[in-house]
């Protein structure tokens, strides 16, 4: 059934359900106009929210938490993640590498990030040259690494017990 003109749907009592790859088409509205901008789609075809679980990656010999909340929202192809956790035990002193992102990230050239983010609070780091640390979403993966803004790896303290790590990131999905 084609709906050419909808004036008032009232209050729907059921969800609107789209087939896979279908959604709301905004192509009738104005597109991106920047000189060096390439528009890829005006179809809004996905939304999802839920939870994910950060997992230990290489370098850390243990990784336990006594507080953990890690959630995500996917809007279209972009995934936004947050994570707040307090370690109950680590034996690390190693580069902070966290796996377990809810979606695989888009590919980029080797050595380049797929997405980035920010650290809200982290008292489990070894501060490197007093520089601000950032969140780096590894391309074509489900992994986050922490770097200083100058590109040096960020290490955790040898014993990060009772210390916190809180961050958020945004990245395009496959």
């Amino acid at each position, binding site marked *: 059934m084609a709906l050419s003109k909808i004036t008032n749907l009232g209050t729907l009592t059921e969800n609107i359900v789209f087939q896979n790859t279908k959604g709301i088409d905004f192509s009738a509205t104005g597109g991106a106009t920047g000189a060096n901008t390439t528009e890829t789609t005006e179809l809004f075809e996905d939304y999802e929210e*839920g*939870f994910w679980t950060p997992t230990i990656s290489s370098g850390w010999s243990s990784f336990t938490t006594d507080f953990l909340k890690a959630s995500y929202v996917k809007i279209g192809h972009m995934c936004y993640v947050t994570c707040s956790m307090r370690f109950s035990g680590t034996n690390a002193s190693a580069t902070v590498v966290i796996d377990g*992102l809810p*979606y695989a990230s888009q590919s980029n050239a080797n050595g380049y990030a797929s997405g980035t983010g920010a650290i809200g609070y982290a008292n489990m780091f070894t501060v490197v040259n007093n520089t601000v640390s950032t969140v780096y979403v590894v391309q074509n*993966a*489900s992994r986050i690494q922490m770097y200083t803004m100058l590109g040096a790896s960020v290490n955790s303290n040898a014993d990060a017990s009772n210390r916190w790590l809180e961050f958020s990131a945004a990245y395009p999905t496959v």
Partner: protein
Amino acid sequence: MAITKEVEISKIEVVGSWHVQVATDTVIKEDGTVISRSRHRHVLNPDSDISKEASEVQAVANAVWTDTVKAKFKTWKELQEG
């Protein structure tokens, strides 16, 4: 009044060359009616330990991760860690 909790795999998606994305729903029901649903997601790669994954997830992963795909993943990983 019976409250039940069910954990079900709602999606298994293969994206890119080797990623297997798994969505798991925890569904709380009261007398058979859903009163709460929350989703958890994770991504599996050819170097992931899938021994604790559900059998249907293992089946998909093993079908996708052919020797050719594993070789491509190994090359990609070496480039990242290079």
